[in-house]
């Protein structure tokens, strides 16, 4: 397995993640909406979005934004990173033509009573200087080279 494997001891509160930029196109929006089985017209019909929703274009749907946040976080942790919890707050829509930029800061590093290693992150999706969506993320990573958060079940998994 050649993917990066982040261990809990590699991380400290205040660390920042490498940024991720992506140019949003109409394809980004429509592909993301259909992949998440979201058929609502404001995510594929520009005329509907403008004239019924009052927005300037179609815009990224929330489930697809969640998939972007997951990709951003697990690009950093590698495949042993296991998401526990994500809290989203959507402030402004993301449209075709926007350059969306992801950044994140580590806010907590620790282990729970079951011995699972947890990292809390404040993740932001920015468009220019504007925060479009925030996502408080809790992700489990191995505490050492033998640990695997995916092997936890029942009372050993406390997201």
């Amino acid at each position, binding site marked *: *397995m050649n993917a990066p494997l982040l261990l809990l001891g590699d991380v400290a509160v205040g660390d920042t993640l490498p940024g991720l930029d992506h140019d949003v196109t109409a394809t980004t929006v429509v592909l993301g909406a259909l992949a*998440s089985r*979201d058929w609502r017209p404001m995510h594929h019909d520009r005329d509907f979005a403008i004239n019924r929703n009052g927005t300037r274009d179609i815009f990224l749907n929330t489930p697809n934004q969640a*998939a972007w946040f997951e990709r951003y976080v697990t*690009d950093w942790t590698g495949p042993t990173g296991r998401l526990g919890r994500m809290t989203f707050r959507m402030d402004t829509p993301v449209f075709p033509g926007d350059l969306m930029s992801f950044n994140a800061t580590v806010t907590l590093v620790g282990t729970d009573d079951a011995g699972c290693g947890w990292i809390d992150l404040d993740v932001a999706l920015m468009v220019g200087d504007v925060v479009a969506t925030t996502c408080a993320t809790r992700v489990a990573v191995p505490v050492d080279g033998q640990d695997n958060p995916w092997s936890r079940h029942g009372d050993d998994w406390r997201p």
Partner: protein
Amino acid sequence: MSDPVDTGEPMPIPAAVTALIGVTRYEEEGGFAVEHGYIWTTCAAVENANPLFWDDDVAATLTGGPIAPPTMLSVWFRPHHWSPGRSEPAVPLQAHFDLKAELDLPEAIISSNTNTFHEPVRIGDRVRSRQVLRSISEPKTTKLGRGRFWTIDVEYLNQDDRLLGVESYTAFGYRRPADTDQASGDSA
């Protein structure tokens, strides 16, 4: 989303609505088993190269076989855009739309949502969901209008009744002030 202001003017919640708090409703099974094609389409849509979803050997080593990205939890439950015998599109999160009608609040936005992930979703799983109204706030006034916040949990379970995850939605249902018509956010 603007900060809410409590105007102190109570609007009674119908007793029939209060009685729904904590009650499990709309328990149903997804329309199809979890399948790999949607997983690849979703990963492609966000350029997610996580080998857990592309490399069977990695999946076998780490998760005991292929799984779906956790954030796809609700994908397995969204109804088809059309299916035989149905003339109107099915509505996900029915409890939310019920509240809009029952509280006579025609507009609503999802102000935040929290997804909690439990057992991994595996290829072939048949996912069931159920909706639980957790709370309804006192009347609030925001820049959008006057209304109430409510929280609905959608719980997902597999065919063995193991909890896969919970999506907790906080919405603000409201009436627009007569002199504004600006909408923002992911309206629902």
